[in-house]
């Protein structure tokens, strides 16, 4: 520890010196968070590129060939607004993309409360950081709960099901499938459900670990760790991660649900 009276009197001056001496004007930890997020962005890009490639290697639904009324079939890629049309407590009512819209809104809102926590950290306002971190954690848990419902709904399925052809012991057998698994599903080609599980699952894992990190930061804030340290940079670093999770959802929402 440097025996410098300025350093001892002002907690937080240490990190200010680190930032001032860094060529990129950020602390080491924050820079590494940025590069981690960049690598994570590559992973998600790869998943979405894979989605695009597999999707466009399947035929698209064409009303002139497949019939004017859209029906699920393994021969073409499903229209997402017909797959994701359920809302809790409103069973059987066709509400396309409404529930995903609610999830998107929850995640954007929790991103806002996270920036508010970071802003409060800049002002060294411990009470405000606690308040906004708590809202962010609640938002994250709400999103995960919505996703749990959506997965359940997707796996259990709805309606009459779809006739799927399967190659068993050297011959083709037809059977009715309701819901979705990794091998077959009622919505479309097997790869559709596989990609749904992988991409939204990978994103959900990120949300889950984000919630755990947020809880850790919230705890540290309440016991005054950052107040004693003299800065709330940990809130900023975890905030970066949390915004990234929101950012990824914006892309998943577009590529998986809208297009």
């Amino acid at each position, binding site marked *: 520890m440097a025996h410098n009276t300025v350093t001892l009197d002002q907690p937080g001056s240490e990190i200010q010196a680190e930032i001032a001496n860094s060529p*990129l004007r950020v602390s080491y930890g924050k820079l590494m968070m940025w590069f981690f997020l960049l690598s994570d962005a*590559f992973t998600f890009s790869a998943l979405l590129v894979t989605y695009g490639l597999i999707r466009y290697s399947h035929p698209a639904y064409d009303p002139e060939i497949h019939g004017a009324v859209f029906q699920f079939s393994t021969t073409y890629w499903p229209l997402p607004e017909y797959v994701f049309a359920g809302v809790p407590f409103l069973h059987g009512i066709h509400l396309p993309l409404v529930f995903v819209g609610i999830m*998107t809104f929850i995640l954007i809102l929790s991103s806002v409360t996270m920036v*508010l926590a970071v*802003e409060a950290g800049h002002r060294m*306002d411990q009470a405000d950081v606690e308040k906004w971190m708590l809202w962010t954690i609640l938002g994250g848990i709400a999103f995960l709960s919505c996703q749990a419902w959506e997965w359940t709904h997707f796996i259990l399925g709805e309606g009459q099901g779809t006739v799927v052809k399967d190659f068993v012991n050297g011959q083709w057998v037809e059977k009715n499938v309701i819901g979705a698994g990794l091998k077959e599903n009622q919505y479309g080609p097997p790869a559709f459900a596989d990609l749904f599980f992988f991409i939204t699952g990978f994103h959900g894992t990120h949300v889950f670990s984000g919630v755990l990190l947020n809880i850790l930061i919230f705890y540290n804030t309440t016991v005054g760790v950052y107040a004693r340290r003299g800065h709330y940079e940990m809130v900023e670093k975890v905030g970066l991660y949390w915004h990234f999770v*929101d*950012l990824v959802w914006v892309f998943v929402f577009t590529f998986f649900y809208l*297009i």
Partner: protein
Amino acid sequence: MAHTEVNHGTGEVAKPQTKRIWQVFMILSAVTALEFIIALGFDWPHGLKAAIFIGMTIVKAFYIVADFMHLKHEVKVLIWSIILPMLFVAWLLLALLLEGDYMLN
């Protein structure tokens, strides 16, 4: 644990500056709402819709990264260290969209 003692001598907590944050929130919500209206209310060709959605997604991504993640206020070298590698991903996407057809035939 009294948090007044950590406020660098002033003893008072500064007023929050949250105008810009709520402004960005309104933009993000408005763009998302517009996406919904276009997705469900208009019977445009698939390619046109896809192009509009991707454009709107990039607008939302810009506001999240620039304002929420504060990248706008970092030094130029850091901004480019993050944006440049992502531009290569965009290049890959564009290349696949334009020429990926050959792979399937």
